[in-house]
């Protein structure tokens, strides 16, 4: 059962690639159906895990990645169905497959330590995961913007020119995704700080709670990414950092997010290794 979402995402990715290459609308609809099926199967999986563990499966990096993939799939489906624009699917579905391999290989649910039994913890994790999903979409939009920009600038109108939506559309969607992501990132970080401040004062604090400070790599890199996205928003409004620069920035910033989420989450942090 825990492999089913991954298999459906992989099938969807294959269909999106085929659709992107040959532009057959039937294959496109198939791809949308497959990714919807994947998200549905994923919903069941997370639901089952919640019943099994008695709490939402958000503890531990692989569970968090699974929830992130699920949110990204949902967010993408929403955008595809509202904008009727399928060309992003090829990039998003590949990202879904790449990330869902981790929870598929490591499906065990970590039991929730007593210290995390707070509604603030769920809000903290869910807002951050939603923020990351938005940033992932912004990154995909940025990458496609850069690809199309290059073709038009170099006067080599070819593959992407006939397949991608106009630059202005990509730029607008990128700016929206970053605004939404930044809002949830801010909420997530603030809630996290409030929660940590609460539990630090409680008796018999967890050693991991004691490690929660700016010196912890996970927290530090999270703040760095908050800084980058804040700059992206600010620079777009005041210095005209739209278009190509915004596209590159959303790519770089998401690389930082991914680094923090996967690498730092697994190997480096002392405070977030639940």
């Amino acid at each position, binding site marked *: 059962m825990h492999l089913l979402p991954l298999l459906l995402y992989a099938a969807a990715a294959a269909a999106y690639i085929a659709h992107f290459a040959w532009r057959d609308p039937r294959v496109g609809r198939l791809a949308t159906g497959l990714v919807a099926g994947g998200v549905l199967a994923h919903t069941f999986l997370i639901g089952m895990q919640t019943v099994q563990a008695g709490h939402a499966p958000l503890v531990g990096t692989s569970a968090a990645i699974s929830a992130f993939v699920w949110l990204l799939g949902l967010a993408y489906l929403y955008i595809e169905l509202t904008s009727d624009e399928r060309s992003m699917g090829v990039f998003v579905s590949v990202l879904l497959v790449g990330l869902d391999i981790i929870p598929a290989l490591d499906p065990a649910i970590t039991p929730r330590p007593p210290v995390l039994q707070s509604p603030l913890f769920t809000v903290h994790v869910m807002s951050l995961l939603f923020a990351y999903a938005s940033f992932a979409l912004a990154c995909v939009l940025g990458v496609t913007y850069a690809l199309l920009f290059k073709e*038009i600038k170099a*006067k080599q*109108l070819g593959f992407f020119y006939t397949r991608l939506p106009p*630059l202005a559309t990509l730029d607008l969607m990128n700016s929206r995704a970053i605004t939404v992501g930044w809002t949830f990132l801010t909420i997530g970080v603030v809630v996290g700080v409030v929660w940590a401040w609460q539990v630090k004062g409680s008796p018999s604090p967890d050693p991991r709670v004691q490690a929660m400070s700016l010196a912890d790599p996970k927290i530090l890199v999270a703040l760095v990414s908050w800084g980058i996205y804040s700059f992206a928003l600010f620079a777009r409004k005041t210095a*005209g950092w739209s278009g*190509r*620069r915004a596209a590159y920035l959303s790519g770089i910033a998401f690389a930082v997010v991914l680094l923090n989420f996967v690498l730092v989450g697994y190997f480096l942090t002392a405070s977030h290794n639940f």
Partner: protein
Amino acid sequence: MRLFAVGLSHRTAPVELRETVDFARKGLGHALAELSGRGAGRELVVLATCNRAEIYAVGDTDETAEHVGRFFSEYHEIPHDRVREHLYIYRGPDAARHLFRVAAGLDSLVVGEPQILGQVKAAYGVASDGQFTAALTNRLFHSAFTVGKRVRSETGLGEGAVSVSYAAIALAKKIFGDLKGRAVLILGAGEMAKLTGIHLQSQHVKQITIASRTLATAQGLAARLDGVAAPWERIDQALSSADIVVTATGASEPVLTRTRVDEVMRHRRNRPLFVIDIAVPRDVDPAVGQVDQVFLYNIDDLRTIVQENLARRGAELARAEAIVDEEVAKYSAWMQSREIVPTVVALRQRFEAIRRAELERLEPKLAGLPPEARARVDEVTRLIVEKLLLTPTEQLKAVSDEAMIVAYADALNRLFSLAQDKDRGQAATEEESEVSS
């Protein structure tokens, strides 16, 4: 009555033969009159282009096709053996399909070329003016025009390649999306500037500003394009607010230099700028293309795109063929439904004959009435007949199934003993168009 298409084209005949078989040499009207004089077909259209010679004819038997085929050699005074093996003959729906494919440019040497539709229209015009066409060919050719238009608007077959202006607009749309809210600046007020301006205007851009070295010519073009004229000294301001800039001046030195555009981009806060340089020699320094968020295309770049589009047309063939299929089906259905028309005409004639007979019979009694009253009687009886026939006529015309048509015709013939009127059916063809319209 059957429809035939007989002809030869670049697909079947060598160029020497196509040069010899030229119905346009003495005018299409001459060929039509000659062919009609031989009684070859009841309706005729002759189509002649440098790549094809075709005759569309309506006749009663397959001999019509024979006649028309022989006309190809007889009219040009060459042995028929030279022509016969290169001729193709299509009948009924196949003939319609052939014409539709021709009109859509699917049968052309350069697939999708738009001129052929105009040539088909002209050929039909000549035949129609000379009254060689009637119901069948009228409908056939109007359907062919529909196919041509649909293929052009619904597929990419006729797309992009036709003009440099179109390529520029497609690019602008790929950069800005919808052009509705965009501002355009045109530098220069010559013919090229005007043409591009008209194309941009058709995209409903927000505003068109025209700047030229002489304000008066700019104002002239501005009036034509519903835009505003700006004095030459103030183009930097206009550049700051424009999204699309078209340069078409006759200047020998670049009008837009790198430093100038760098300066402008600072004021624009880096909003994308699409510069289309259609002037020769160029109005824009090529280095401008290196500025971030500036997209610079000159006339040669656009021509290259046009060439590439030409190559890509092939991909749209299947969609165009589907449109042809659809219209052939419609035309065939109409052809079938039409066969009820002689019966309808006979029925109407029968009713009218009865009315006249009754009026004649009553003539002694009516003779005493004043002329206005007599006219009124005539009018009222005519209206009654019209009213009685209205629903049956509509119902009959709606029947499209061939077996049903035969059944209805049979029933009507018996009920109103129309059979003896049938031979008058031919004389009634003039009335057909009135009934079927």
